[in-house]
């Protein structure tokens, strides 16, 4: 479709969606231009999703494949659920970036290369023995060779910028070019550059010049036939912001503190990819947030437990390796029955694994990774903005049942972004804390006393009294306690009772009207296949299911956002569908749980590459399952 917009004679092709990947060396500023392009597109009104991908090393050897950093953004005029399968456009700033990303392209894709980065040395560093621009490697693609570096140098020369500094603006040249190609208004970008680099006028001017040069190059080079236009998406009315999972999680925790009236204490130890939650919360002092960077992961959990005992909304955040270390404190929190939220931003393991890559491999650790019978609720976010809802839900459950809760996100959610429609804060449901402020039991001799383990008959939650209240002094510890009094007890019957009570308390959440269902359903009458997933794979599975339906298949989708207790309806769904497939980024952790619960032959689709599923690949594998 071709259209002309008023005020310009240039023809614009209308597209429904495009997936663009910016790729370069870690030092090339690809994350920055990706972020900026995303922000522009969000402001323009597109629906979108992003997928940053960068090496764990701060600066891997320049020019090598290991040092490639990329940022993929999917923008559309309709509903977006994933960052896109394969890029339609790859911007490659050097040969390594080309080499690292080429295999993700499908024939017909557009490749924009910075030819200035393709001399013999660059090619060798990237591991090319012949020049891919000449040896036919790129025959299947539409290739634009743009001298990005030299044009940037030219554009910045009149400013008298040093060559090395000028070269660093080349990412803005690339951004300017892409903005022209996809008709993005650049005014907000200019303002952003002016604000961000206000204190460094030379850098500011060089970036602005590079941006303009990139745009002008698109317009005048006659390399490109015409720019494309992607209309704003018809999102529900409201005010939106573009948000990533880590920020969303931090905001959710602040909201939970406001809604419960409990002060937020966040204790954490630096770890990729969870650290940004600590950074975000550390900035928010005006909300009364108390953050502490603990001496280690164990201390972070211990501090959170101490804070919980003292009446905070206590949270500790980490990533897989840190969750290993927090296990003992989680066990104590289960035994003390204190509210606490433990955030695990999952990453590829085992051990250090691949810190910046995503996986869903901590599910069984979250469910079972403690000695003794130590059950606790586990919830998982399904998209970046859903981290807000999940943080609220985790806090609500923790406070309601006086229990530690594990909240699972992952690297994909942490750094990926999507538009989020701002809720009306006054419409958010308050979190009822229900503190005990006076003696709650009468001794046989008529004395009023405080029993810390007196339970609410419906939720089975124990009473929670905070230090400072006269007459309610109590001592609690990790040694088994007598139900009711909370005194130390080694009695066999009491221990049996307490072990079962702690499990029953978690199970009671499954029927608790205050607690969310934990299940996103998209069912279809007469479906041949039920696809089950959990957490961050929601977008990819949703996309795959849409494709299968478009191809005429009858497919139902059930997505879990709570893994313990499992939503009640789930087992029914598992046994009533002819075929059940569980798709997850591990070797079958939920699949096993589902088989155990339903005694069905639940099939598994698994991927452990450190990358999220693509909807296309998932649809292909689901179609295979349907054919069997």
């Amino acid at each position, binding site marked *: 479709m071709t259209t002309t917009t008023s005020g310009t004679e240039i023809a614009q092709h209308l597209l429904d969606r495009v997936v663009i990947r910016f790729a370069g060396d870690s030092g090339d500023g690809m994350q920055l231009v990706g972020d900026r392009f995303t*922000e522009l597109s969000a*402001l323009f*009104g597109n629906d979108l999703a992003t997928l940053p991908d960068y090496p764990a090393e701060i600066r891997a050897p320049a020019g090598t494949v290991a040092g490639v950093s990329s940022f993929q953004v999917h923008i559309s005029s309709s509903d977006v659920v994933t960052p896109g399968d394969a890029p339609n456009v790859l911007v490659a700033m050097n040969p390594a970036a080309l080499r690292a990303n080429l295999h993700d392209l499908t024939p017909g894709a557009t490749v924009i290369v910075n030819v200035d980065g393709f001399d013999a040395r660059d090619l060798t560093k990237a591991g090319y023995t012949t020049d891919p621009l000449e040896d036919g490697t790129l025959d299947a693609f539409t290739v634009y060779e743009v001298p990005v570096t030299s044009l940037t140098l030219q554009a910045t020369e009149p400013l008298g910028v040093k060559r090395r500094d000028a070269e660093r603006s080349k990412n803005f040249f690339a951004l300017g070019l892409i903005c022209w190609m996809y008709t993005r208004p650049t005014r907000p970008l200019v303002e952003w550059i002016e604000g961000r680099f206000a204190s460094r006028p030379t850098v500011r001017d060089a970036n602005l010049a590079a941006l303009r040069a990139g745009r002008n190059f698109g317009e005048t080079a006659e390399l490109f036939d015409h720019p494309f236009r992607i209309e704003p998406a018809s999102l529900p*009315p*409201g*005010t*939106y*912001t573009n948000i990533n999972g880590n*920020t969303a999680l931090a*905001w959710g925790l602040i*909201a939970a503190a406001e809604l419960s*009236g*409990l*002060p937020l*204490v966040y*204790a954490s130890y630096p770890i990729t990819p969870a650290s940004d939650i600590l950074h975000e919360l550390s900035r*928010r*002092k*005006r*909300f*009364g*947030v*108390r953050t*502490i960077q*603990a*001496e*280690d992961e*164990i*201390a972070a959990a*211990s*501090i*959170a*437990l*101490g*804070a*919980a*005992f*003292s009446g*905070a909304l*206590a949270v500790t955040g980490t990533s897989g390796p840190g969750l290993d270390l927090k296990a003992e*404190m989680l066990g*104590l929190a289960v035994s003390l029955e204190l509210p606490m939220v433990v955030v695990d931003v999952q990453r590829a393991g085992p051990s250090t694994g691949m810190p910046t890559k995503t996986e869903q491999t901590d599910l069984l650790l979250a469910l079972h990774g403690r000695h003794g019978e130590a059950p606790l609720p586990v919830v998982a976010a399904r998209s970046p903005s859903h981290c807000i809802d999940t943080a609220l839900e985790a806090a609500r459950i923790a406070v309601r049942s006086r229990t530690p809760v594990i909240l699972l996100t992952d690297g994909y959610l942490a750094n990926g972004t999507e538009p989020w429609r*701002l809720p009306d*804060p006054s419409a958010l449901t308050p979190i009822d804390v229900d*503190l005990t*402020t*006076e003696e709650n039991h009468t001794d046989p001799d008529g004395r009023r006393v405080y029993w810390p383990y007196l339970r609410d008959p419906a939720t089975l939650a124990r009473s929670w009294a*905070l*230090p*400072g*209240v*006269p*007459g*309610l*002094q109590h*001592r*609690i*510890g*990790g040694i088994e306690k007598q139900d009711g009094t909370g005194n*130390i007890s080694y009695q066999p019957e009491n221990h049996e009772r307490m072990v079962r009570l702690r499990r029953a308390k978690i199970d009671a959440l499954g029927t608790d009207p205050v607690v969310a269902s934990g299940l996103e359903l998209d069912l279809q009458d007469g479906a041949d296949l039920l696809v089950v997933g959990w957490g961050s794979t929601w977008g990819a599975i949703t996309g795959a299911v849409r494709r299968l339906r478009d191809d005429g298949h009858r497919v139902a989708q059930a997505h879990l956002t709570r893994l313990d207790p499992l939503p009640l309806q789930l087992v029914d769904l598992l046994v009533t569908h002819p075929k059940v497939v569980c798709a997850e980024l591990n070797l079958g952790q939920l699949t096993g749980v589902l088989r155990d619960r339903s005694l069905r032959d639940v099939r598994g689709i698994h991927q452990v590459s450190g990358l999220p599923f693509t909807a296309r690949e998932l649809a292909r594998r689901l179609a295979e399952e349907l054919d069997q």
Partner: protein
Amino acid sequence: MTDVRGVRGVTPVELTRKDFMSDQELRWCPGCGDYGILAALQLMLPELDIPPHEMVFVSGIGCAARLPYYMNTYGVHSIHGRAPAVATGVALTRPDLSVWVIGGDGDMLSIGGNHLLHALRRNVDLTILMLNNQIYGLTKGQYSPTSGVGKVTKSTPFGSVDHPFNPVSVALGAEATFVARTHDTDRNHMQEIFRRAHDHHGAAFVEVYQNCNVFNDGAFDDLLRRDARPDMLIPLRHGEPVRFGAEGQRGVALNEFAELVVGDVDDLGEDRLLIHDEHRPDATLAFALSRLAADPHTPTPIGVFRDVRRPVYEDEVSTQIEAEVERRGRGTLEELFRSGATWTVD
């Protein structure tokens, strides 16, 4: 700080020892030094004029760590080694409370060494009592990080080859602002030291020599036998020359290598005796005092080694929050959600 308790505190008119005693039966071995330490603590606490409900006792695991159960205060019996970190969470959340940490030498210097160091470094307002009996009691008699080289225990049948920690040196090295040592055979001294440790605003570390009569009986006898005390305990008194002995005939002085030496006052010279100054900003002399005795078999200083002021962690956290609220107003969710770029869809 918002009062989240829902209730205002009420201070009883006159506090007594009984106000701090819980109804739980004491479960230490008969003759254990812990009894005397608990008694000294419960006798001293009423003097502080802080009602029991405004106190929290936090412990880890070990014989000493049972102490919170016997206190009619709020208490957490947590995990081996973690008490200083758990207590940090309490203090950070509720600077209004009086927070105590009780543990043993294995608890605090072995498995929990790291947490102790960082609680001291941060200067969290905690009163930390480390009951040192140089042995693992609860697990029935293995050597601890304060046991001497050569110590024969169940896990070191040929004698320990581990070099021990000197707890006072460790605390001073960790930038502690209050460091003291006392022992379970002198109730008055314990009460005095506990009170001063509590009154110190910031992290206070007290090493208490404690006899484990079952697994390490008499570990401190060389110092604490009644007849040995005058010649073996070097009492530290602020502003006074450091001297000891029945007649004050022994003393401590600096030598030409900036080390402290013990000797007869007659030999050292009265005017060369070290004048103890708890408040010296530099911890070097306090550290030198802690090095006088490598083990409790030679003359050993007791009392307050160091008592200085430094900003307290949770106060600084509160100050930053208050300053931000003062400067830009209390944050609202409305404003938080709009803190990034936003756009509107009609």
